[in-house]
Structure formats: C-alpha cells, structure tokens
C-alpha cells in the first residue's frame, strides 16, 4: 500500500477522531486528498470500523473475559471456516482466531459473570458437533490491548522548561 495511506492509518489508529483537515495538515496534503484516501480505505474494508478502547476495570459493571482454546474436527471441503462461523455468530464471542499449534481456534468470550461464561462453554460451544475439546482460560487483568497500555507508567516526566 502507498506510504500516504499507511500514514493515514497510523494517525487514525492513534486517534480515530482525528478529522481529515487535521490529518491533511499533519501530512502536508489537501483535505480532499485525505478524505478521498479514507473513503477508499473504508470502501475496500481496510478500515473496517472506528471503535473505542475501554478499560472495563474502571467501570462498575462486572465483566468477565475468557480465552478458550478449542480443538476442532475440520469439515471436508470447508476446513475450519464453517465451524468458525458457527462460533463467531454468537454475540458473546468477541473474537475468533485460527491458530497453529496445540489447538485450532482461539475464542474470546465476554460475559457478565464467571457462571455466564461457563454456561456458554458447556451449553453452546462444547455441544457443537465438530468441537472435540475446550480449555477455558479466564483473563484476570488486562495490561495492554491493541498496543494501548491501560495503566501508563510512562507519563511525561520532563522538566517543563529545558534549554
């Protein structure tokens, strides 16, 4: 991809609310050029969505996240895709990755309580035909997500004026 679009992606990844006008100034381009590039990226589904990163630990509502290692029997002709789709259609499922190594799918589940997540695994995920086994790992604390640290200890420690 051309440098210009990669730079736009970088700037939006840092802060998705940056306006085309601001990005244009920062890149030394015209606002129209930036707007057009962003539209191209959106149309091509390179930019899929502008989402918000939330530190749920600071929200009173309880939230439990688990990463579940799932072993699968792949389907003739369609491999893992069909079963992956079966799994990701559940709204409780936040992400699904096909993995190399000891298991096949890594499924991220979010629920209100531990019980809710456990019940999803035992009632919905495990009974699926092609699921051979599951191993549920609960997340205890999130330190960093998508390159963003939740508790930043590297705040600005510079002296306010220096030569």
């Amino acid at each position, binding site marked *: 991809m051309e440098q210009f679009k990669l*730079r736009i992606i970088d*700037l939006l990844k840092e*802060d998705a609310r*940056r306006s085309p006008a*601001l990005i244009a*100034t*920062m*890149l*030394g381009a015209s606002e129209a050029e930036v707007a057009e590039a962003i539209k191209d990226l959106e149309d091509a589904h390179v930019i899929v969505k502008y989402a918000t990163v939330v530190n749920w630990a600071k929200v009173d509502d309880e939230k439990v996240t688990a990463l579940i290692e799932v072993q699968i029997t792949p389907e003739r002709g369609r491999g893992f895709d069909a079963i992956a789709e079966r799994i990701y259609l559940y709204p409780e499922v936040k992400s699904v990755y096909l993995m190399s190594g000891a298991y096949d799918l890594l499924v991220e589940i979010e629920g209100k309580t531990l019980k809710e997540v456990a019940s999803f695994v035992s009632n919905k995920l495990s009974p699926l035909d092609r699921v051979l086994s599951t191993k549920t790992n609960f997340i205890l604390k999130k330190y960093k997500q998508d390159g963003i640290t939740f508790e930043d200890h*590297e705040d*600005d420690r*510079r*002296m*306010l*004026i*220096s*030569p």
Partner: protein
Amino acid sequence: MKDDEFMMNQTEKQSPTNKSMSDYLAPLVREIPPSGIRKFFDLVSGSKDIISLGVGEPDFSTPWHVREACVYSLERGNTKYTPNAGLPELREAIGEYLYDSFHVPYEPSDEILVTVGGSEAIDLALRALIVPGDEILIPEPCYISYSPITKIGGGIPVGIETFAKDNFKLTPESLKASLTPKSKILILCYPSNPTGGIMTYEDWLPIAKIVEEHDLIVISDEIYAELTYEQKHVSFASLPGMKDRTILVSGFSKAFAMTGWRMGYACGHRDLISAMLKIHQYTVMCAPAMGQVAALEALKNGLEEKDHMVESYNQRRRLVVQGFREIGLTCHEPQGAFYAFPSIASTGLTSEEFAQRLLYEAKVAAVPGNVFGLGGEGFVRCSYATSVTQLIEAIERIGKFIQKL
C-alpha cells in the same frame, strides 16, 4: 527552600571572615549571569495546569530495546570504567554511522571521543583550543551554553546575528563582518536550537571558503542532525577541505530520545581529539559505561525507530506552523530540530512580556527568544515535541490570548 536561597543563606552564615563567600569565587565565573532560561524555569515551576512548549527534549521515551540492553548489561555486572575515549565497539559504531549517514570518515581509534553528552564535547573543544583573548564567533540566536563556556575558557564570545528573513541561516556577509585578526573559532549549530533553521550544501560552501581563508577552527554542534524534514542534513565536516578544521559534536539525546543518558561524542583531527581526551580523562575519566552500552544498541538496532520519531515530529511541525499562521503569528518554516520560532513582534510586547503573560493568562509556557542571544528578541521558542492534543490546545489558547491583547 530553593537551592539558590539555600546557597545564599549558607553564604551569609558560614563566612569565616567578613568577606562574603562569593568573594572567593573566580571573577570569571561570578560575573556570568544566570541563564535567562533558568529564570523562566522558576516562574513556570510555580504554575499549575500549564501546557509546556518550553521543553528542549523529545517526548518519546528511550526505545525499550535500548533500555533493555542497558538493564541486561547491568545484570551481567558491566559496571566498571571503560577506556577513556569510550568502548571501542561504540566508537566503531559511531564511525560507521557517521560515514553511512553523513559521509564523513573518522578513524575510531583516535578520531572519535565518547563524551558525557554533546555539552561535554563542546566544553572540551573550547578548553582545548582557547588562548585567552581569542574571539569565538557564535551565530545567534543559539543554544544558551556556547557563550558562557567560551567566557569560562577565557575566550571572547562574538555573536553574529541571524535573521528570520534568511530563515536564520548564517550568511557569508555577516560572518565576514564579524571577523577580526583575533577570530579563531566558529561555533555552528545547525539544525538550530532555537530557530529550526538549517544550512544546505549551497549555503555552506561560501562559509567554508571564509573559514579556510581566515584559518578558523569550527566546532560544529550537529546534535539535531537526524531531525531534518525537507532534506538531509549536511555535516560541515563533509565539505571539501573542512574535515581537519572541524570538530564535529553530536550525541544520542535528540535522535534516539536519550537526553537523560548524557551520551555524546566529538570527532575530529587526531591532534585535536587527543588534546580533548587529555582533559576528558582528568575530569570525568570516561562516559558512563551503561550509557555507552545503550548508545551502542541504539546505533545497532534503533535506526528504524528513529525514522518513526522523525516522521512524527514532521507531522507536528506542519501542525504548529500552520496553527501559528492561522492565529496571525508570522512563523518562518523550521526545517530542522523540533522547534518553531514564531515572531510575536505584531503583539507589541517584548519576548519576555509575551512569554510571562502567556504563562499567567493562557497557561502556556514558551521560552522567550531573547534568552538565545542576538536576534532572538521578538520571537518565542515553541517546542513541538509534545502530544498532538496538547499542541492543538496550546495553539488555541495562544490564539485567544493574542485576540485579547
């Protein structure tokens, strides 16, 4: 109690005779006024909720792999003196880097000296060269330490004013006009702190000619060499015939976000470097061992990360320059370092009045241009090495402040 007050109280109480303790000081040192930036620092320190554009260092932390290299090295017990001139492998790496990046070949064994920041290198160079009474030519506005260090060394600083209309370049005319039979050293700092001015190959050629004709030695402080935006930095030492006349000073602070490590170096003719090494070994012995390990890691594996930082400064440079122009301040295009140097002449205030009122009324700190010497009055130095959000907010505050004047 502040350090200064403490020192004064001690002076009065503990004087063993009727003399004030400061009477014991060398007149040369006593007469050097405290830096203007220090005065402003005290003002700013007492204020709250301010956005500071007064910081002369990167806002990035030192890249993690560099810090980690230092941690590992400490764990392995590398806590001893290094050779006076610095670790041989670091000097090798500096030599290679300078050749690859700026096309100046230096022999690591006797033409490169690792120092405690670029500042020590400048001090060593001046101390090694100055004979009392020598005139030291200093284009201004410039970094605040050249003139005081010159005086401490017994030299006479001769400022050469540079102007916004020339993008703060040193012109051959003004250099010539400042020459006398006593002129010995020319101190250059391009890319420039505080103006962001740079010198191109074409700008340098006539300067090099004058340097040759008048048999000057050049101390070229190229600490911001990596931070240029429209074109690559041209080292003064790379110009035809200039390498032997030039002491190239640089370091890791700005390019690799390593200010607190105090890692710098000087390169030059072996006769000059060995003289500087003599002073260095009797004063500091060697640069800190752990810093040298980190610096080596920065040169070996940090160049890509450096490029990212430079791109990020460039984006913010465009943002502040346009921002200042939109709120009605004249701002020449800075081509290097991470400072914008807008003119505040249109407000009718002096630099100090502007900076003080801006601090109190708009809660933005910028450094008044006059502290940087000749040609600085009427400007303020604004560092754009701070977050985009803060920069936008700062420009907005400055805009409102100007409107109310």
